[in-house]
């Protein structure tokens, strides 16, 4: 089976690099083809890379608290750019302050993210989900997500 391509990066003005380096190592190890854009990545840079590499998914990180601002409108932008059905994951410390994860999930789901993870995400479980989601996407169906 061919490896699924995923684009990885930390959005906005966010400099938190450690988790990003670990995610790169981890997903590569789990058999994904990882395009890592590092820190301080804009929405368009993510989308450019996804288009260029035919990626199945974009994994957005936001740690520093401005996620609510930086991540808004990402799905709409994907649609505008013609990759509206790309898989969008987001994870990290997604809002300012300590909040109920369920609230955070609702907020980001309303922005169009498919799956939302806190800083305690179990990466093995994430990789399993991602593999399934990518596989499902690879099977052409009549209905869109």
């Amino acid at each position, binding site marked *: 089976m061919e490896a699924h391509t995923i684009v990885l990066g930390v959005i906005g*003005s966010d*400099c938190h*690099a450690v988790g990003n380096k670990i995610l790169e190592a981890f997903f590569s190890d789990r058999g994904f083809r990882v395009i890592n854009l590092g820190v301080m990545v804009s929405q368009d840079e993510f989308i450019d890379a996804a288009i260029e590499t035919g990626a199945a998914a974009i994994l957005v990180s936001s740690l*520093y608290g*401005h996620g609510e601002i930086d991540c808004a409108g990402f799905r709409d932008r994907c649609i505008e750019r013609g990759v509206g059905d790309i898989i969008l994951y987001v994870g990290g410390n997604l809002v300012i302050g300590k909040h109920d994860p369920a609230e955070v999930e609702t907020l980001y789901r309303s922005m169009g993210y498919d799956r939302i993870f806190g800083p305690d995400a179990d990466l093995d479980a994430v990789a399993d989900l991602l593999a399934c989601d990518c596989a499902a996407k690879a099977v052409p169906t009549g209905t869109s997500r």
Partner: protein
Amino acid sequence: MTFHDAPLSRHDFTAQQSDVRASWPTGADVDFAESIRFHQGRDASLNMASVLRQADARGAVLIQPRAGVALLSEHIRLLTFLQDHCDLLPTTIDAYTRQNRYEEAQKGVERSREAGHSLLNGFPAVNHGVAGCREVVESLSKPVQVRHGTPDARLLAEITLAAGFSSYEGGGVSYNIPYTKDVPLERSLRNWQYVDRLVGMYEDEGVRINREPFGPLSGTLVPPCISHTVGLIEGLLALQQGVRSITLGYGQAGSYVQDIAALQSLRDLGHEFFTNAGHTDYELTTVFHQWMGGFPESEARAFGVIAWGATAAALARATKVIVKTPHEAMGIPTMEANRQGLEATRQVINMLSDQPPLDTPEIQAEADRIKSEVRAIMTRVAELGSGSLVDGTVRAFEAGVIDVPFAPSKHNRGKLLPVRDLDGAVRIFEPGNVPFPAEVMEFHRARVADRARHENRPPCFQMVIDDIYAVSKGNLVGRPR
């Protein structure tokens, strides 16, 4: 080893200054003469340099939180609340301002106003301008410092120092390499020469502003020799521009032998390098950052980490401690969580400050090792710079002679790999191009090999990853499961 980087000339400075002040509308409100009068009119108890000097003389360990929110009134409320629980106050700047993205900061302020709570991760001081910042400073009864992470912090310095802040964190390396992706080092170093010169100009008028290089860098398994080298470079660059009050920083590694040794050696090395470079008229103090890596999510466990940081700081007699909170793993702390971190820290420091500072032969051996590492790296920096510390530093990073682990910057080699040894001290697994003395490198290798043997696996990247997660998972050394 002497460096001849000149102080920024008045001409160069003034030329930059007009551009800097024009880069955002609030820059126009800076009035240097007025601000000198303001600073001079203030009580010594509100001046960071003065308070640190006195604490140092008494052997006291002061405590300082991090704190900053988007809106002025909220920010004042926050600091007014915290000042009863700490000795020194911060104003933590938001991440848009740090990147000079003042439009986005403005948007953040507006959206925060609408939302009724802060959507920014700090206080956008440039947007609030001199008058807003002055209101902050005047509302408070403790010295206030600007804490940020800004590679080009010239306008922020102009505004906040004019407003009455008496301490300014950062430096051309420490606020570039861990905080940015692609800002050339020479550029940030030059921009920070401006900041230091500005502080020097305050000094020329008899107003002492404290400067604090950011010690922890990436906060993640940074070997003391690396952060010490960066601190010394930024200290020297500041002194060259006329700064006189310098607080050298260090982020807790977690091993008490290493942490106490690191703080001792940092102070010793500061005096060694500063006096060797011909400086005599300066004040040197130290700051210890409680654990800067990933925290445990459990608040009770976070308290454990916080208290252990307070313990090491007190046993090493740091001049001040930067305090974490039980919310660290989750998000910007509430006022209340911030207070809790301060109270836990205060309790430990109080209980310990009557007790003798800790010193053992192991600590001395560790301190000597750190010193020899730093001297070796600084010797290479001097060679590479042939008289210029700025050039030496730029070339040292290019060559990987200084290498900060896990930093996001492209201008950092990222070849050095640290890992913990069996006792929990941070050791060198892969030195990259950092010129460790041969016998010291032998020591590191032996220590890492010991651990590898003990864990029945070769020294490997997984070991490093395990170490990165270890504290957040309730340990210090990342043992295989």
